[in-house]
């Protein structure tokens, strides 16, 4: 429940960022540079006099948008690939799963960086890169769950009735594995948000002056001794967002796993 309400709050803040934020996130005020948190600027200001709270609120849009969109992209590509590979049992299926193994060899950040070096920077490219990073996880998950239900009677019945492979995969297999996929969706959304923050911290995310949490933490590190709020508040925002999705994922997993419901 906590995770659900926290996530809802984050989504509402991101959606209504323009109304919630007290100032324009890019509005500079040289007379208010590096002011510590006070009643006028709850999270203080940065070296350009920009309000940190407003930038954190607007940064939530980027992080949530990238996190959610990349997971949807990764889920669609990965789940389809995994289901097909499990159903095919032939050379193509084998090739798909070996490609998944190769992609999983790389740490997530390294693989995303490799992609971004090739395709360049920008929000759409970031979503694509993180989606590609997350797709192998969905492929492995859907591969395993499809294998477990592939030989069930209702699948055999559908095959016997002459249903074609795409129809069996989309109409019979996918609805039955969707539950498990959705549970991991929320956990891996948390991962995607964290990867986006890491990439922004490394300067590979959405370029400035767009406010992103990772970017803000990075620029704040150089001012850690005299203006720690510049790193701490965006860092806390990242942690809360990741925590919210982890809580939802954990809760869903606890509900769906019968073993954990035993006393």
């Amino acid at each position, binding site marked *: 429940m906590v995770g659900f309400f926290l996530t809802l709050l984050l989504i509402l803040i991101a959606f209504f960022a323009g109304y919630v934020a007290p100032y324009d996130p890019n509005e500079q005020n040289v007379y208010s540079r590096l002011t510590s948190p006070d009643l006028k600027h709850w999270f203080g200001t940065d070296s350009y006099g920009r309000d940190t709270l407003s930038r954190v609120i607007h940064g939530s849009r980027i992080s949530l948008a990238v996190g959610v969109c990349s997971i949807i992209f990764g889920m669609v590509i990965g789940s389809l690939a995994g289901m097909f590979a499990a159903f095919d049992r032939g050379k193509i299926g084998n090739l798909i799963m070996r490609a998944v193994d*190769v992609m999983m060899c790389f*740490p997530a950040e390294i693989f995303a960086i*490799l992609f971004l*070096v090739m395709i360049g920077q920008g929000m759409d490219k970031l979503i694509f890169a993180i989606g590609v990073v997350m797709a192998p996880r969905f492929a492995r998950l859907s591969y395993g769950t499809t294998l477990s239900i592939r030989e069930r009677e209702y699948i055999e019945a559908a095959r016997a009735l002459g249903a074609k492979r795409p129809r069996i995969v989309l109409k019979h297999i996918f609805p039955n594995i969707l539950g498990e996929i959705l549970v991991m969706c929320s956990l891996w959304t948390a991962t995607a948000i964290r990867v986006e923050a890491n990439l922004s911290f490394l300067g590979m995310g959405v370029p400035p002056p767009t406010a992103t949490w990772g970017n803000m933490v990075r620029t704040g590190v150089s001012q850690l001794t005299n203006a720690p709020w510049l790193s701490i508040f965006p860092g806390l925002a990242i*942690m809360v967002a990741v925590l919210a999705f982890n809580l939802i994922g954990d809760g869903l997993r606890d509900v769906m796993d019968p073993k954990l419901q035993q006393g």
Partner: protein
Amino acid sequence: MIKYSIRRILLTIPLLLVVLSMVFVFVRLAPGDPAMAMLGQYATQEGLDALRKQMGLDAPMWLQYLRFLGDLLRGDLGVSMLNGVPVVDQLRVVLPYTLELTVSAMVLGVLLGVPMGVYTALRRNRSADYSGRVVSLVGISIPSFFLGILLLYVFSVRMDLFPVLGAGRDGDLGDRLYHLVLPTLSLGLIMTSYIMRMTRSSMLNVLNEDFVRTAKSKGLQERIVVYKHAFMNALIPVVSVLGIYFIINLGSSIMTEIVFSRPGLGKLMVLAMKQRDYVVLQSVMVIYATLAIFINLFVDLIYGLIDPRIKYG
């Protein structure tokens, strides 16, 4: 066990080949001309052509690929496009720092995470379990660079207990360890959370098994049931995911090296990225991928040793 090990080692070779090929293709597809990046925008066409020929960039792609593999086999990773220093020399300097950071973080994660996971599993649904789960959930949610910044701010900036940056003086073990404390904590505490959750989950599964119920009903002491029967079986799935956790650790170490200004593969990679030094970038990617593959291989072999179904199979 021997068959399993040989099969596993042999499978590593094609995997390594495909991964190296992927790195080659991705870096070659990166936008920009490496020769132009080295000589600058005022370079003459003759100069650019001569440099491309010297770097082998005028050769067909398949020849460049074969040369790339051949050079890797000889241990030649090329020279930096920026300063002409052989990449192998640069890696020889920075790789030990990355390894000492990631290995120490994993060791900390295992030493803290496993006992804490067992402790919380044995006290399921009690206050110790709830606190442990909250702590571990926060632990896996906090980005490693943010935890590093918090530790840096509290223990270095405010309390002046630990150094702010660097990896310590070469040859001075005490100084190196002193500089390693905060970076190891920033990675290791997160690893602790992952391993604790996995251990707890695995212990709970095993404690529900029939053989544990049988051991208890035979009147065995709680200590023997838990540590001799349950724990050893619970450890098997934990070991099997250590490879995955090490890969996560490797990725997070990049950020930790930046936060603490430590030399390492991550810092070298970020510098190469910013300066478009594709030779260094390619080599660092190769090292990361190779490390990940061999760590997974090592973990799989350990797994084969401890899982009796494989050991005696």
